């Protein structure tokens, strides 16, 4: 090589080196990201492992013999059952393993997908939106380093989750290879949707919009495989359009095949290439979808603390409403299958609390209504906690420096949470009743369940009130509200099958609500709960009035 050639070459190369250096700093960023997530990742992994653990305890109680398992298989043969669960491999000889891969795998994959979406958005778009990415990128950090670091974190989280899951299955004496396939499927589903989030994070300027779009893709994937699986046992071509479907198509514990997982890997690769291409084309902090213009003047609906809070919450309320309605509809449409299997298997009916026919349906659906109320309680607590962010980001201070009292501001914001909780309850009750009514041809159920859902309003407000109290006494933190809520939910869901002492079960808040319309409506507990909710909210408001504002 001649000396004259080297000079321009070198210039060219140093230019290249800029591109190659686009990963500079990735290692440090990844370590930092993992450090930030050192609690979250184990919590997700253990929660999923715990779900399996729960099933290990519950299934032998609910389905003590092969005959009982077959009744379960009969439900899964129904289109509605297949829609909720999976493609239905091995239904003719239903085993615990087949049950895990048919009914549980899809939901586990959704959970890991959600974790991955949140994780990727948190480490990419959220960082940009808050302006922290700008500070980071201004250091010796390459263009692609933040995204790469987020993806490394994503991989670590999903490997941890998949490994823990497989270990839980293997520990329960299930076939090793199939257990590994389940773990790998769940981990890969996480990777795919993490990669989807890596793409959507490039599209929108807002973290919530980015995770919302990725969540919509996840919802679509679940519905696609649901419809496909409902169309025929083993799934139709629609099932093959969905990454969740691919994980289920490994037929683990029935007739294991690995290659569908290759589809997950290929899609992840394609998405990641797209994400990096998009990331390379845009400015830090910018999205590819330009922000739209809006009104120059506020409408009368906005210029009130409640109006503003509603505007801020609107998207999330809508998302919850659609999600709860669809889940309610699907759950309700299982009604016919449940009634059928109870009629053919009276001993199974006893497990669910006895009774017969229509009553049984109402009872079962009424207990499902309680599960939806738990979801709404989570919404309510999250919604109240939004006030914390408002305060730390300095907006509350600016508002309270105007002609508005602290109680007025707090209670207006709370009112939005309270009313939207009621709406969400009504929507889930309506969906559940509509689905159940349609499946047994009794449309009055839709109305019954819509009305019945309001029985859960006081208990939901109790948890919202706890969150208000926690906000009022800011120093006390909010973790104890979550412990109470999650504890109540866990005991409510699993308590009966875990044979917990009566006293514990009786004290579980959601269980205190009369199970209308399956049971008589008792007013006393509802009155008490309302009193408690009001007292908690009042105490929180008083505490808020007497403390320093954080920022």
């Amino acid at each position, binding site marked *: 090589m001649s000396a004259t050639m080297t000079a321009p070459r070198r210039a060219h190369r140093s230019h290249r080196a800029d591109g190659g250096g686009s990963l500079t700093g990735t290692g440090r960023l990844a370590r930092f990201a993992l450090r930030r997530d050192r609690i979250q990742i184990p919590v997700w992994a253990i929660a999923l492992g715990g779900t399996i653990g729960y099933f290990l305890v519950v299934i032998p109680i609910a389905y003590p013999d092969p005959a009982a398992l077959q009744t379960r298989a009969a439900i899964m043969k129904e289109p509605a059952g297949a829609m909720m669960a999976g493609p239905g491999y091995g239904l003719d000889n239903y085993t615990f393993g087949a049950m895990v891969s048919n009914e549980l795998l899809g939901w586990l994959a959704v959970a890991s997908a959600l974790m991955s979406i949140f994780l990727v958005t948190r480490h990419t778009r959220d960082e940009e939106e808050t302006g922290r990415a700008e500070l980071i990128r201004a250091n010796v950090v390459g263009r692609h380093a933040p995204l790469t670091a987020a993806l490394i974190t994503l991989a670590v989280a999903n490997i941890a989750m998949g490994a823990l899951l497989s270990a839980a299955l293997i520990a329960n004496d299930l076939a090793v290879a199939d257990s590994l396939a389940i773990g790998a499927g769940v981990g890969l589903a996480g990777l795919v949707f993490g990669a989807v989030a890596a793409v959507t994070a490039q599209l929108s300027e807002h973290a919530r919009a980015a995770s919302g779009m990725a969540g919509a893709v996840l919802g679509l994937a679940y519905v696609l495989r649901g419809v496909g699986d409902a169309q025929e046992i083993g799934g139709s071509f629609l099932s093959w359009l969905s990454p969740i479907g691919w994980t289920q198509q490994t037929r683990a514990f029935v007739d294991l095949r690995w290659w569908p997982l290759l589809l997950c890997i290929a899609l992840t690769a394609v998405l990641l290439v797209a994400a990096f291409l998009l990331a390379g084309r845009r400015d830090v902090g910018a999205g590819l979808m330009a922000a739209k213009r809006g*009104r120059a003047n506020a409408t009368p609906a*906005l210029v009130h603390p409640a109006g503003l809070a509603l*505007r801020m919450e609107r998207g999330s309320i809508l998302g919850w409403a659609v999600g709860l309605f669809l889940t309610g509809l699907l759950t309700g449409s299982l009604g016919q299958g449940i009634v059928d299997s109870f009629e053919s298997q009276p001993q199974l009916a006893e497990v669910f609390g006895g009774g017969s026919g229509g009553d049984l349906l109402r009872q079962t659906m009424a207990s499902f209504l309680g599960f939806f109320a738990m979801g709404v309680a989570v919404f309510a607590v999250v919604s109240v906690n939004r006030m914390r962010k408002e305060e730390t980001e300095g*907006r509350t201070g*600016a508002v309270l420096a105007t002609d508005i009292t602290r109680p007025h501001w707090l209670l207006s914001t709370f009112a939005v949470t309270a009313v939207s909780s009621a709406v969400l309850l009504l929507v889930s009750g309506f969906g559940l009743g509509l689905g159940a009514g349609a499946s047994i041809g009794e449309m009055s159920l839709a109305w019954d369940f819509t009305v019945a859902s309001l029985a859960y309003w006081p208990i939901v407000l109790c948890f919202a009130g706890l969150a208000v109290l926690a906000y009022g006494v800011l120093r006390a933190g909010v973790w104890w509200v979550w412990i109470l809520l999650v504890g109540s939910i866990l005991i409510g869901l699993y308590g009966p099958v875990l044979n917990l002492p009566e006293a514990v079960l009786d004290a579980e808040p959601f269980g205190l609500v009369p199970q209308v319309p399956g049971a008589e409506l008792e007013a006393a507990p509802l009155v008490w709960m309302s009193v408690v909710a009001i007292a908690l909210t009042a105490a929180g408001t008083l505490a808020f009035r007497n403390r320093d504002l954080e920022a």
Partner: protein
Amino acid sequence: MSAVIDVRNLSKSFGSVRALDDLDLRLEPGEVHGFLGPNGAGKSTTIRVLLGLLHADAGAVRVFGQDPWTKAVGLHRRLAYVPGDVNLWPKITGGEAIDYFASLRGGVDKARKQNLLERFDLDPTKKTRSYSKGNRQKVALIAALASDVELLVLDEPTSGLDPLMELVFQDCIGEAKRAGRTVLLSSHILAEVETLCDKVTIIRQGHAVQSGTLAELRHLRRTSITVVCDGDATSVERLSGVHDVRRDDGRVMFTVDDDALPTAMEHLLPLGIRSLISTPPTLEELFVHQYGSADAVPAGGEQS
């Protein structure tokens, strides 16, 4: 007339950090009062106590003669606040944010808002997230200036504004002053303070180290003199109150204490003055002196 803001011996601690330590601050009606101090001195903390957002640990705080902690709302009807770090809600536009603040303060004056939008050259249809720092600040400024209040509390309101907007801001404060409004202006922009403020309070580590009119503060520093004389002007060195005498070409430069100025002039007069330039201390010099001086009352601020 009673003071608009009257703070005496105010103390406030955050855990072990003593943010305010025996602070005094007094604003008479109609005055524009500069509030100065190094980073972490406690300016924002004082303002947040004045707004009733923080509870004073000790001392007497009166705004319009009332306690801002207990009477916050009644007081807020009479004042408008612009925070230093303006954080707006995502998803809404600048115009909507202005209306929101204004309506919380009791209604929007449409004409005034429009006028201010034009003067500050702000597009109200853009989403708050797409505003630059300066534009976010304009939103808060317009919301405050458009409301009909007696007191403006401004915490570094112009730290993101360009020089043209800075002039618009100064105009607006001038109008507010002519309208008889009182203004508390915390700022690091000394030229702005020098132009706008009647009085200044300088705080350091949570304690007011100087307070008074600019003229009074200038008294505390020496005037710089540059003189060309027929005779030998360096002889002023002998006088007490004269410092730093230097000769440069034919010019003699020195600084002189305020009370020694007449003696110095008497001394120079017989020497045949050809030219004389007297420069009063700039605010900057006052600042560097006050900010940097080690003799101020020690209080546990951010820096030890």
